[in-house]
Structure formats: C-alpha cells, structure tokens
C-alpha cells in the first residue's frame, strides 16, 4: 500500500537549507508558468504550428522532482513535456525556437513541442506516445548501473499512461533488475478528456506499484516542498542501489489537454478548475515563504520580472531565427 508523504519538509530546524530550496522551487515553477502561458498566447495568436500540451497547474511536480536531481541524472518526459524541460534547465531560446519550427530550436525544427530534448542536461526527450518514455528511462538507468555510475533515471507519466502496457512492463523490468529509476506519476485526474474514474477503478494510482514489489508514496502535487522531499528520499534510495520507487503526485492541469481552452462539451466544470486554482502551487509556496520569512515579496517579484525579461528575449530570438533549409530535409535520419 502506498504511504502518504510526511511533512518533514516543514521542519524549522532545516530552515536554512529550506530557504535555498524554496527559492529554487519557486524559480523553477515561475519559469514553467511563464514559459507556458506565453506559449499559450503565441498559439492563440496563430504563431505556432502543431500541437501544444501545456503544463500549467502541475509546476510543483516538475520543480519538486528536478530540484532533487543532479545534471547527470536522466529524465524521460511526456507529450506534456515543457515543464520537465524547463525545470531540467533546457534553454528558453531553444524551446521557443523549436515551437516556432526554427532551425535554432532544440530539435533543429525537426521535432516540435513533443520532442524537445537536451541530452547534455539529461533530458532524454518529451515523447508523443503515451507511456513510451517509461522503458527508455529504465534503459538509461540500466546504462548507469552497467557502468557502475551513480546517476539515476526518472520517468514522468500521467494517470492515463498507467493503463498502457509499456508502463507495466517497464515497472516490472526496473523492479526485477533493481534499477535506479524513479516513476513519477503526475495524476492530474484526466487521460486527455476522460476522468480517472472512467479509466481505472482505483483512486490511488500508486497502488499499482505494489504489484511489482516497488515501494510508493503519494504526495500533494500542488505542494512543491512535499514533492521535493519525497523525491530526495527516493533519489537517495535509488543511488544507494535499493531499486526503483514510485511517487504519485496528485495535481491538476489548468488548460485543456491540448491548446488553451477546449471548444467542445465541458468534460469538467469551471468550479472544479477554480477549486484547484485556489490551491495553486506557486501561490502556496509564495504564501509559505512569506509567512516563514524564507523569501521577501521583493525577492519573489524579482524572480517573476527576470523570468519575463528572459522569455521576451527568447521569443524575440525565436522569431528572428532562420527557418530550416528544405535542402536539409534528410538530415539526421541516420547516424554516420
């Protein structure tokens, strides 16, 4: 049975460390929030080709997990991957340029939103196929174990992905090979437009880990400190060779599955959305930081302002970047 996360992160004795952690988490969340809201506006303005699966609402998960990782730790992401990329440190310029289909983008304009990656930062790609990143992270963890290195792998996926075979196969494989890989389930309550209650009969996805002999923990996915603390513990375990662990973060997606606002029948109520927004992860962390003195309003505002400036610069860079040359249509189909 999955354990409910403890509230160790609120321990005042750890105040000094936690001040740094709070500022780190805040910055990562603000970077994701602003990157995504601006991307949404650009899409609404018709400037971006293709699909856009925005991460807004779930920032505490990417920020909380990534703040517990090293640069050489590897992650695999999902179709909703911008948040993971931003939190892992992928540059705004490369990301926006990719969304614009420019040759300066993270995939040279060949991949778009769903394939943003930066292998130099251990970001092994967003992924357009639900659940497909799970076994790939298992392979990255295998490589670390094979070489005797202590970097770990983390795979992000949603509640919906735990109904697909690659998740179950990957979880069992990781467990049986005792690999250093963390399974981060971002349970946002919906598989595209289908509510969790209509796609599985359990409430806590973390229960699924038990059948693979994998310990699990459930955290409040709107509480970045809770996500972070649970991840720190799971990372330590994985690095020590104690095998994989499953973390279910209960969270929520503010925007639609794809794009900004759906046009079809309402699959969820405005009241539900507002209820979650009232517990917004960034608001929660800011309130906590101001209350316990780990940050001042001016410091927090400064983070927003700096990030806005950086984003404006990155968008300008993307818009000024050249398009790919059609003569290079076959570039990188093969190595060598």
């Amino acid at each position, binding site marked *: 049975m999955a354990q409910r996360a403890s509230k160790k992160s609120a321990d005042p004795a750890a105040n000094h460390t936690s001040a740094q952690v709070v500022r780190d988490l805040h910055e990562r969340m603000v970077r994701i929030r602003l990157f995504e809201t601006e991307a949404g506006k650009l899409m609404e303005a018709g400037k971006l080709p293709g699909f856009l699966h925005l991460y807004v609402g779930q920032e505490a998960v990417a920020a909380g997990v990534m703040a517990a990782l090293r640069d050489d730790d590897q992650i695999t992401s999902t179709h909703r991957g911008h948040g993971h990329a931003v939190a892992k440190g992928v540059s705004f310029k490369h990301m926006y340029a990719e969304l614009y289909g420019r040759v300066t983008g993270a995939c040279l304009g060949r991949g778009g939103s769903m394939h943003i990656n930066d292998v130099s930062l251990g970001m092994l790609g967003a992924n357009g196929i639900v659940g497909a990143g799970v076994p790939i992270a298992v*392979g990255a963890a295998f490589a670390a174990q094979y070489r005797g290195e202590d970097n770990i792998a983390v795979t992000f996926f949603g509640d919906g992905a735990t109904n697909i075979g690659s998740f179950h196969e990957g979880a069992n494989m990781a467990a049986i*090979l005792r690999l250093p890989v963390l399974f981060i389930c971002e349970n946002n309550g919906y598989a595209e437009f289908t509510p969790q209650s209509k796609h599985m009969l359990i409430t806590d996805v973390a229960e699924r880990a038990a059948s693979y002999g994998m310990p699990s923990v459930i955290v409040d996915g709107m509480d970045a400190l809770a996500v972070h603390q649970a991840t720190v513990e799971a990372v330590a375990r994985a690095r020590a060779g104690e095998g994989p662990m499953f973390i279910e973060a209960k969270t929520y997606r503010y925007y639609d599955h794809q794009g900004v606002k759906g046009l079809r029948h309402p699959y969820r109520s405005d009241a539900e959305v507002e209820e979650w927004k009232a517990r917004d992860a960034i608001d929660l962390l800011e309130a906590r930081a101001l209350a316990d003195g780990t940050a001042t309003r001016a410091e927090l505002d400064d983070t927003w302002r700096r990030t806005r400036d950086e984003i404006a610069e990155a968008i300008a860079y993307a818009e000024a970047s050249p398009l790919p040359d059609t003569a290079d249509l076959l570039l990188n189909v093969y190595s060598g």
Partner: protein
Amino acid sequence: MTTITEAPALAPGGTARKLSYVKAFNEGLAQAMREDENVFVAGEDVAGYGGVFRMFDNLLDEFGPRRMIDTPISEAALVGLGVGAAARGLRPVVDLMFMDFIGVCLDQIVNQAAKMKYMFGGSVSVPLTITTASGAGLGAAAQHSQSLEAWLAHVPGLKVVMPSDAYTAKGLTVSAIRDDNPVVVMLNKVLLGSTSEVPEQIYGIPLGQAHTARHGSDVTVIALGRMVGEALAAAEELAAEGIEVEVIDPRTVQPLDTETMFASVRRTNRALVVHEAVTFGGLGGEIAAQIQDAAFDYLDAPVLRIGAPFSPVPFSPVLEKAYVPDQARIVQGCRRLLERS
C-alpha cells in the same frame, strides 16, 4: 564505432573452416562483445538457457550475468531498455526470439528507436541491435513463421539485414553491432543448422552492399534471406540447360543496394525478385518499381515477383511447403521471363 573491418576473402577451393549459421552468429556476437565492453545482450532466455535456438550458447559462461541478461517476457520494455541504454552510449543487443513478436513492441522500434535521432535534431544516436528469428518451414504456424522485413524497411531510421548463410550471419551481425543506428538482424530459422565457410577472425560485412552470389547473363534473380540458397539451386538446375542465372543477395534490405541490381539487369534484361514474405506489399514490389524506373529501356519482360500467397503461414507441412517459394518456383519464373522475350 563505425569502422568496418573488410570481410576477409574466403580460402580458395573452399578449404576454410565450416560453421553452422547459428554458431557463426554466436561467434560474431561473442567477438563483438570482446571487442567492445559496451555491448551486452538482453532478452528472454538468452543467458541461462542460451536462447531457444542456441543463438547465445556459452555466452553467459564467458561474459557473466552483467552482460548477458535474462528479462521477463516484456518485449516493449526490452526494446525500450535497449533504446534508453543505447541513447546513453551502450551498444545493446536485444533478442526478440521470433520475429512475429515485434507486434508487441513495434512502438519502441518504430516510434522510438528509429526516430529518436531525427526528431531530437541529431543530438543522440541509437546504436541498438535487435536480433530475431524469422521465416517459415518448421511447422511453427501463423504466429511463429513470418518474414516481416517489409514492415521494418518501410520505416526511416531503421536498418534491416537478412543473412542468407553462415558467412553473412556472422559478418552482418558484427556490422549491425558496430553500426550507430538501430539495426534489425533477421536470422532465418530454417538456415540455423546450415553450414558454410566462416573465417575465424572478427569481420564485418558492409551494410547496404549487395553481393552477387552467382554471375550469369540471362536472368537476374534478386533473392532475400533463405531464398538466396533456393535461387542458387535454381540457377544450377537451369545452367544444365544452358540458361545462365545471375543471383543477387542484397544482404541488407534497408538501406538497399539498388545500383548492383540495376547494373545486373542492364546486362541480363530480365529480373525476378523472390522473398518468403507475402507478395502483396512485399519488397519485391519496391525493387520491381525501382528497376523499372532505372532500367525500363533495358527490360525484355516485366519484372517478376515471387513471394508467398496472401494468407497467414499455414501449419500442416503439405500446406506450408506449397506456401513458401522454392527452387521449383524460381526455375519456373526464370523460364517465364525467358519465354516472354
């Protein structure tokens, strides 16, 4: 590593050592593992049992459980493990036992392994080798007998090799492992016990280079995998009647060495393509179309395709024998081409 050690010439007069197809594969794999510490093998029953076709015999003894990994029956996770490990710089060899099983892991092969380099903008390579046993002829029925090379050759980013004898089983496997791309090695089950000359040292056979297995001036037969042997037997039979058949073994079907085929057809003016896979949508259609594009004016007859009928592979030996193309059908096909011109 991308350098290819040129395949050594075989000893004159066929005096070199002979080895079975499966042992040649095993020897090439073992030598590639000795050559590069990053090579490991994962799959169902590959370590403790040595593989259901004895492909991995004795490798656990030499390389130990770190490099020979038995996995659960989880092909999607197995190939995915290979993709992730390859993206991190290892050279995984993952075994799918029967080719028919690719249906349960096609996403990892087609959407992940094949496309990762391209869709990542070139930032990663996937030096993954997938070994699998294909082909009919053993009464293994519809789910354990297919030749699905056309499915895979259709996917940009993948390479596909079809060893036709022990010599190519070793050399193509070594090249697949040394290659920086995902390569599927389609071993043929019926050929596993067949023997031919195999040099003892490690050697690679260049991927994407066809081999002219027999020279002739009257008809070009392009044969895939096990059909190479059938085509050579057919050529021998027709030679007794004074008909000289040229037999081309593409060895690699993706990339496909069409230049060797075009050059041959320009001399013989007739072409026949033969494969075990069903004719409809098979590589015979692709090869025929390309020959027509490149050498239409040289053709004395339409390019002929010989493949399996449009049916699953049957079980009963009498049906299976009628299903799989063979020497007699190739002989018949060559005669038809000659009669038309």
